[in-house]
C-alpha cells in the first residue's frame, strides 16, 4: 500500500506503524459520570467495518507524524489522508 502523506507525498506503508480506528482520538473524560464504562468501550470495543475505515497511522520511519488514513478494508484502496493533528482540531479534540 502507498500512503499519500500530506507533507511528504507518496510513501510506502512499510514506513508506518498502524494503531487502529481513528475513533481512538476521542478519549473519554476520565472525571465524567460513567467514565469506567466509557473507558471500557473506548479501550476494548471496535466498530471493525468491512468497507471504509478511518484509522491512525504513525510515520515511524519518516517524519514521526500521526495521520488519519481513510482506507477500504475490502480492497485496501486509500481514499483520503490527513494529519491527525488537523483532524483532531477539526473535531474539537486538540488545542
Amino acid at each position: 500500500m502507498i500512503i499519500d502523506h500530506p507533507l511528504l507525498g507518496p510513501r510506502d506503508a512499510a514506513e508506518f506503524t498502524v494503531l487502529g480506528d481513528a475513533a481512538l482520538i476521542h478519549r473519554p473524560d476520565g472525571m465524567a459520570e460513567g467514565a469506567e464504562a466509557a473507558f471500557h468501550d473506548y479501550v476494548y470495543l471496535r466498530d471493525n467495518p468491512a468497507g471504509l475505515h478511518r484509522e491512525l497511522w504513525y510515520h515511524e520511519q519518516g517524519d514521526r507524524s500521526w495521520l488519519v488514513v481513510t482506507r477500504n478494508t475490502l480492497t485496501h484502496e486509500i481514499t483520503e489522508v490527513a494529519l491527525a493533528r488537523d483532524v483532531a482540531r477539526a473535531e474539537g479534540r486538540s488545542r
Partner: protein
Amino acid sequence: MRYSALKILAEGLTGNRGWKPVWRTPEPKAEYDVVIVGGGGHGLATAYYLAKEFGITNVAVLEKGWLGSGNIGRNTTIIRSNYLLEGNQPFYELSLKLWEGLEQDFNYNAMVSQRGVLNLAHSDAQRDAYARRGNAMILSGADAVLLDRAGVRKLAPFLDFENGRFPIQGGLWQPRGGTVRHDAVAWGFARGADSRGVDIIQNCEVTGFTMQGGACLGVETSRGAIRAKQVAVCVAGSSSRVMGLAGMRLPIESHVLQAFVSEGLKPVIPGVITFGAGHFYISQSDKGGLVFGGDIDGYNTYAQRGNLPVVEDVCEGGMAVMPMIGRARLLRMWGGVMDMSMDGSPFIDRTGIEGLYFNGGWCYGGFKATPASGFCYAHLLATGGPHDTAAAYRLDRFRRGAPIDEKGAGAQPNLH
C-alpha cells in the same frame, strides 16, 4: 456408511459403485433446536459434539459459501498445546487430546501426524521463559522437553546454530504436537454430524437475527427465516459483521495472516519449527511443500490477501534460521481473515441477548483449537454452563479486569 480397510477392498472388487456422498444436501426446515451460523471447522465440530456427546440432533449448520471455505482451508495445519496461562493451556491440552483420538472417533482419515513442535530459543532469557512455559504445560498434563543446543542439533542439524545475531541456544520441544490435514477435519466433522441427523445447509447466508423482546428467536437467511431455540454464531474472521446484525460491538478487529507453500521437496523438515527471535514457523506437508508463515499484516482488513512487506519479513525470518531453504521456490501464497481479540485469546460465551451465543476471537490460533472449541461450545449450548477448560473465555472479561494476555501486549490486537 462406516469406512474401513475391508470396505475399500470390497468396493475395489465391485467397481467402486457403492460409495455415497459424504453428507446430504437438505432443504432448511422452518425450525431447529440449535442453528449454528458458520460451516467452518469450529461450527461443524460444534454440531458433531452436540449430536454425539449431548444427543442434540435437531441442529442446522448454515454456511454462506461452501463447507469449510473459510479459515479451516487456509491455515498452516499446526496442532500444539504449548501455552502458558491458566485460562488457555488446559483448553488447548483438551484440544490436543481430542486430536489424538479424532480419526477413530469420527471414522475419517484426517492425517493427524504428531511429528513434534520445536520452539527455538536464542538467548538465556528466552530459555528461562521456555523452562517456565514447559512447566506450565506439564502441569496441565501436556508434554514438554527443554532441549539444549546438542538436543536441538540432533533434531534439526540444518539450522543456523552460529548465526551472528540469533545463535540458537536451545529450544522447547512438544513431541505430541504436529500437523493435521485441515480440509479433512471439516469433512470428517461434517460427515459425523450429518450421519447423526444434523442438517448442513450450504449457500445459505444469514442476513439478520429475528429479535423479540430482547431475545433471539431465529435467523433471517438468503433462503428464508429459520426459527431456533438457540442461535450459535461461529464465524471467526467475520464475527464483527455478523454480531453487528444483532447490534453488538465486539472486542475484535479483523486482520489478515498470510501463509506460503514452496515447491515440493524431499523430506527435510522433521516437524514444526519456529524461530524465536522473529516470527517464522515452518513445517513440511506430506506432498513435500514447505508450509510457512509469520506475522499478521497489522492493519484492519477483510481482503483475503496481504501485502509485500510482510512477505519480505517472513522470508527474512526463514533465512535467519534455516538458510538452506533460500533456493526453494515459492509455489503459492494466500491470506486468511481472522478475529484478532484485545488480549489474543478467544471467546466461547452466551451474549446479553437471550438465545444468542458467540464463539470467535481465535486470532491466528483457531485451527489447533477446532475440536475443543466445538466440544466446549456444544457443552455451553447443551448444559447452559461453560466447560471447565473454557470458563475464562467470557465476553465480559475486560470489564472484570481479567484478560488472558499470553503476550502481555495489552489492548492492541495487531501486536498479539
